[in-house]
């Protein structure tokens, strides 16, 4: 058989179980014809990685007209070989989800509700809180007179959901601000 596993799956769209069928000598013409009518027809394939646990199963996201229409395990990735668990298999419903938060929300002190805001408004407000807290509470020297430049009263918690790039930049930003209370799921 000259098919690569991935090429074969593309043709049949029917999963690993079919491999044995072809090996047993089944004619694949019909399966191929069926494949052309699949819902992923014409969709762009994008490699993504499951956002849960540390196996990092690779997933193929099918995108058409800028919309995610299907996700499936990447059969070429040597670790998951196309398989996904319940969480990985739910990637599509996880990203297209009515519970998603769509806009920045703000809850004023003592308020009973959220208010929708835009990003510029929240970012400038947050920057103000950060600066005011830091200017007021940065500890430049400890009791022994040693320089410590530490902002004990501010913290950052999270997250293993961040990419390596995001972790690197968040760490750098926090140390720049003087933050030392920093923790995330690695300690859970």
């Amino acid at each position, binding site marked *: 058989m000259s098919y690569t596993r991935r090429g074969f799956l593309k043709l049949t769209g029917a999963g690993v179980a079919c491999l044995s069928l072809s090996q047993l000598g089944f004619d694949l013409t019909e399966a191929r014809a069926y494949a052309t009518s699949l819902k992923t027809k014409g969709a762009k394939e994008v490699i993504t990685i499951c956002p849960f646990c540390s196996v990092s199963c690779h997933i193929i996201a099918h995108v058409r007209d800028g919309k995610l229409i299907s996700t499936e395990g990447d059969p070429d990735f040597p670790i998951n070989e196309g398989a996904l668990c319940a*969480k990985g298999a739910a990637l599509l419903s996880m990203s297209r989800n009515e519970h*998603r938060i769509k806009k920045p929300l703000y809850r004023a*002190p003592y308020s*009973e509700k959220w208010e929708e805001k835009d*990003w510029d408004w929240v970012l400038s407000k947050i920057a103000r809180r950060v600066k005011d807290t830091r200017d007021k509470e940065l500890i430049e020297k*400890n009791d022994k007179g040693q320089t410590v430049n530490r902002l004990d009263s501010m913290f950052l*918690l999270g997250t293993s959901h961040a990419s*390596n790039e995001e972790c690197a*930049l968040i760490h750098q930003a926090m140390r720049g601000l003087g933050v030392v209370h920093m923790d995330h799921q690695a300690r859970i």
Partner: protein
Amino acid sequence: MTNHWIDIKNADSILIIGSNAAEHHPVSFKWVLRAKDAGATVMHVDPKFSRTSARSDFHVPIRSGTDIAFMGGMINYVLENGRYYKDYVVDYTNASYIVSEGFEFNDGLFSGYDPKSRTYDQSSWKFDLDSKGVPKKDPSLKHPRCVFNLLKKHFSRYNIENVSSVTGVSKDNLQKVYSTFSSTGTPDKAGTIMYALGWTQHTVGVQNIRSAAILQLLLGNIGVAGGGINALRGEPNVQGSTDHTLLYHIIPGYMAMPRADWQTYDAYNKANTPVSTDPHSANWWQHKPKYFTSLLKGWYGENATAKNGYCYGLLPKIEKGADHSYMFLFDRMYNNEITGGFIIGLNPMNSVPNSNKVRKALDNLDWLVTQELHHSETTDNWHRPGVDPKKVKTEVFLLPSAHRVEKEGTVTNSGRWLGWHDKAIEPEADARSFGAAFVPMMNEVRALYKEEGGKLPEAITLLNWPKTYNPEYWTRLINGQFTKDTVVKGTKYKKGQQVPSFTALSDDGSTMSLNWLYTGSYTEEGGNKAKRRNPQQTKMQANIGLYPNWAWCWPVNRRILYNRASVNADGMPLNPKKAVIKWDGKKWVGDVPDGGWKPLSSGKGKHPFIMSKHGHGQIFGPGRKDGPIPEHYEPVETPIDSHPFSKQLSSPVYKFVDSSMDKLAKPADPNFPIVLTTYSLTEHWCGGGETRNVPNLLEAEPQLYVEMSPELAEEKGIANGDGVIVESIRGKVEAIAMVTVRMRPLKVKGKTVHLVGMPFCFGWTTPGTGDSTNRLTPSVGDPNTTIPEYKASCVNIRKADKLTEIEM
């Protein structure tokens, strides 16, 4: 993991302890089953019978929190019955080192204990050195104070009787596991140990893992295919977030956080750079100043110069021994010492112990910034049940987060493989990635400091910081770049070009890198190697499934750590059938070796454990806060009131916080006689904040339950499906009773001890599903890591008249 997911298939014996691998890492479990198909024995040691047990050769029920007793029993069995791999032990571990006279262990305490501060002075935990400063050794292993004999003496108390009595494991089961797993103490067999949070979440978590390290070194199972100690890390990018360090105590690349007593750049380097005088010890951390300087250059760019100590003076410095982890943060918050902060992609109001306290603590903040996909118990804490929002002062920002499919970047899996994920679609509505929120937020702060001045503005304004967030810009910086034109081994690199390997990083300011471990992942020659999808491998590599051309793996694409321990002094594989590396007379073939030096017999080689100062595997490990050798201590809350073979009941150095809400049940407290252990589910992730919002996952696992044995159910008059109240000294939780033989009562010191188990992923923002299980668990933690003891606490259970948190 010392090894990687696929490598599990190479094992002859698999011990899964402190993990429910089949349910928590379901896809990876195929590699366990593949080993089993090839004849490996799979054993599951766990309080609960689960799907992992069902697919194992046998399940061994154990009382939660007694793993060191279990493992110590195996170490004793190996030593007493000569089941260790002698050449490996002598040549590659510190078993032959002579321990100095001052070191002692008596009545459960190591030398140097100070009861007032509850800490050890570790200065007596050391080796005798020769005139050159190299540890003295006795390769015959006869010296009474060599590590091997001290180990033998220490674990002689861990006989089958004692171990069975404390763990609740039958003697037959102990014999069965010990004999099967120790059969891998030969060159042609490998055994692997797979653990997860079931081992780390104890006040003795680090020593659980140390017990595995000792056992695996004795059996010669480190560095070989199918061996190793494999942490099944449970979170999406938790390997990467640890490497790049969203943690208080280290900075990226596993270097210490600057401390107040290291006031200058030079003082930091002096205190943190080990020196070895043994010409055969690679002592890899001798290069630390190169990595540290490159990191500072990454953070402060051209502003970091040799003259200003690369801006070291601007960084925050923690006090020696200070703890800034969750447990202490929330305690300080409870005591009104914290003003504001960020909680992103995390639900600590559900996932941190003693939820009743931490939920109250959060009310004391002036401001809180959160960024999530959905509302969670943390973002919405201000209107939780029983609280009047009109009395909560906290100003809360909730930023909409982009989902994985909506962003690009790299993540690192448990086997240290670096993977690139592309952006499939634009973020939903106004959602943004963390990067696209934090980069502009910091630019706003920088602009304010430039306009207004303020305290220590240069720590912020001098940062090397871009205008907008571009993930691949950071991927390149993580690898590192030259800051001036440089020649490396005859190749010219221009300023701004990628550094080819961490061996080219420098402490003279000519290189920058945000993480030395990742240098080599994105080079001029190879591009962004996280994107590699090439299945090609040599026959030798394919034999053990190394996949060296698929993605990239830290360090330097080495797939199996400490692999120089898989060959003899001539560089020949100890197990030729599953060779990892091999010296072909001119070069190493197979995996990337742990350093390219010639084999040891050439006289120019190095000992295999290159990250430890003296180059040997550390059976005696003097660096830990609670002892150089593991000792069984009871969980802080325990159903027994005396230790069967020591006078020290619980760890003498475990960490805790103290407030009116931090009560602990006393040992063998009759009000709380049942052991509680907590765990995750396949369908929900961690505190459940995300997965509860996915209908198909919530349908599969819809509400909080408590698993208990039929014997306990009968004793308490509870039927399967009843609503029950589970109660600890700190709080109460409603759950549905799941009566099952998966939980077994255990005989511990002659009396019956019951265990119950609960997931912790349900919360009040998903109505009717139940609320935080962690209202029951205590804020006590491991002295090395401060990881809390989620896995063993004491509770009681009764039938509920009526449920308010769960819809029946």
